[in-house]
């Protein structure tokens, strides 16, 4: 095993071990924190496909995170109120079943990513950054001003949604669920990285002309990557909403997009496990720096600046060195 694999393995072990310890020590809040880290990691893994592999600097991924969250909120609130979502042309009922919610979250955020991506990917570079940001804002303002699902107040779900065979209200069981999903998606992403699609997408990032001249359409590759990326981030959004039993437009705000990106940069851009380590470090920082000063964002900013300017590889880069080349 390489040093990077060891680092990855250690990260997963810590992420799984801490809540187990907390379970034994009866510190349920630590489990909640670990769950939060796992979900943020998942959102980051989603973005990382577009950002790390595809080179698409999307500053609008909160849109998909939030859409996933709202998929959960809307379905569960209808189920909670026993009010069907639509009676015509056919009856659509709400649901409190996680698998169904996840499916809807993935489909909804994938469709949104398809629409946003189809337009945004006509451009590139700095245009792409600004346009994804602007589309994110558009959805944010829509969510705030559309009254049907709580607007700015958001939607509260009183009881966490259910998963067959599990008691999701038990923090450790819900953590387990999120952790398994994270691992599953990581396995999937590893496969995608090594697949024909991954090779071509990564080549399109490095040299668009090359990809064109071997008969592939970079636009199509990127759009597919953007859609998968949005769908994964959307799934994370649904889990995050279930963790909080609450969804609101804050999940759609552009600061959220920035934070998801921060997970990736802290961990290491383009590394499969970058967002996992990044999210863990971020949660840890929140916890410790937040305790030191009311103005901890200043320190977070300084740290981030330091990483960007002087330690480009992030945590994994520092530990494992330049095993995989990046520009």
């Amino acid at each position, binding site marked *: 095993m390489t040093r990077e694999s060891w680092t990855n393995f250690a990260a997963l072990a810590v992420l799984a071990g801490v809540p187990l310890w907390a379970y034994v020590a009866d510190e349920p809040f630590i489990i909640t924190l670990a769950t939060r880290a796992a979900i943020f990691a998942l959102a980051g893994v989603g973005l990382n496909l577009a*950002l790390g592999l595809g080179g698409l*600097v999307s*500053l609008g991924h909160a849109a998909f995170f939030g859409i996933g969250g709202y998929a959960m909120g809307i379905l569960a609130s209808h189920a909670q109120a026993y009010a069907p979502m639509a009676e015509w042309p056919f009856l659509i009922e709400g649901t409190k079943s996680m698998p169904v919610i996840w499916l809807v979250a993935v489909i909804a955020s994938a469709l949104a990513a398809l629409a946003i991506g189809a*337009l945004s990917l*006509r*451009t590139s*570079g*700095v*245009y792409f*950054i*600004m*346009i994804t*940001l*602007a*589309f994110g*804002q*558009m959805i944010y*303002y*829509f969510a*705030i*001003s*559309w*009254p049907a699902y709580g607007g700015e107040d958001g939607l509260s779900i009183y009881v966490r949604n259910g998963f067959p065979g599990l008691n999701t209200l038990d923090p450790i069981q819900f953590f387990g669920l999120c952790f398994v999903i994270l691992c599953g998606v990581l396995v999937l992403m590893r496969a995608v990285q090594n697949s024909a699609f991954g090779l071509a997408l990564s080549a399109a990032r490095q040299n668009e002309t090359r990809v064109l001249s071997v008969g592939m359409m970079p636009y199509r590759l990127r759009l597919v990557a953007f859609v998968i990326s949005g769908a994964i981030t959307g799934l994370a959004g649904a889990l995050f909403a279930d963790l909080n039993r609450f969804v609101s437009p804050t999940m759609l705000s*552009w600061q959220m997009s*920035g934070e998801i*990106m*921060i997970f990736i*940069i802290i961990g290491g*851009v383009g590394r499969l496990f970058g967002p996992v380590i990044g999210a863990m470090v971020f949660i840890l920082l929140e916890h410790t720096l937040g305790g030191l000063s009311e*103005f*901890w*964002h*200043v320190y*977070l*900013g*300084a740290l*981030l*600046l330091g990483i*960007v*300017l002087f330690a*480009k590889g992030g945590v994994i880069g520092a530990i494992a060195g330049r095993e995989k080349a990046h*520009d």
Partner: protein
Amino acid sequence: MTTLLFIEQLLNGLQFGVMLFLMSAGLTLVFGVMGLINLAHGSLYMIGAFAAAAVAAATGSFLLALMASLAAASLAGALIELTIIRRLYDRDHLDQVLATFALILIFSEGTRWLFGSFPLFLDVPAALSGPVTLPGGIQYPAYRLTIILVGLAVAVGMFALINRTRVGIRIRAGEADREMIAALGVDIAKLYTFVFALGAALAGFAGALVGAIQSVQVGMGEPVLILAFVVIVIGGIGSIKGAFVGALLVGLTDTLGRFLLPQMFGLILEPSAAVSVGSALASMLIYILMAVVLIFRPRGLYGVA
């Protein structure tokens, strides 16, 4: 009556557009010349407003406050350019986004540290408070009219600077070819610092002008920043002319949309539904405008392919 209201709204749209131009000009210039995307531009806007409010409170002079905003924002701009930004020119956009995002965190919380959490006070100078009557009997706030005129003057000044002066020639050369301009013997590092500080000064100036009729508070810059992004995407990144046209387009679209959409929906829906649908749509209107422009011109109205 309706015509008068419409004209007044046009003026409002114009005023909003002119403010957006002050924000966008610096952003687009910095991108055009240095290839840098600067998320912290909104922080410079905030710095201008805070400096103006602090000086106005200390001296009571609005003119001094405006000068303070220019000085503080350009100084802050030059400072971050020298220490941080110039390390980012050769980096990819991702690094630029993250580093300037980090700067937002530092500036916002730092300002709160210095000035506290409550909004500061900055008032319109007495001479410009209250309305003036325009031909046709339109009552319009004197201060807003002044903003329009000042903004247009700055726009003319910017065009003159870019097209008529030696600095402008250098800036344009820098947009065309960085190596060439270095070969011409221009001190490129100084030029970059100058351009960045100029953009910062414009943003700070805008912050101070607007701060007098809005509230001076932490986080005031980011909403404007995002609008400025929309402006330069529409106008074409790097183009001052594009920024100007884009700013007016966004200003007018937003203002008239807020005004007209609820009324239009009022024709087909009952009043309260019309108001909420109309307002929801109005808040999305400029983004829809941006999408439409992009479909037809992916590089913006005046962008270079």
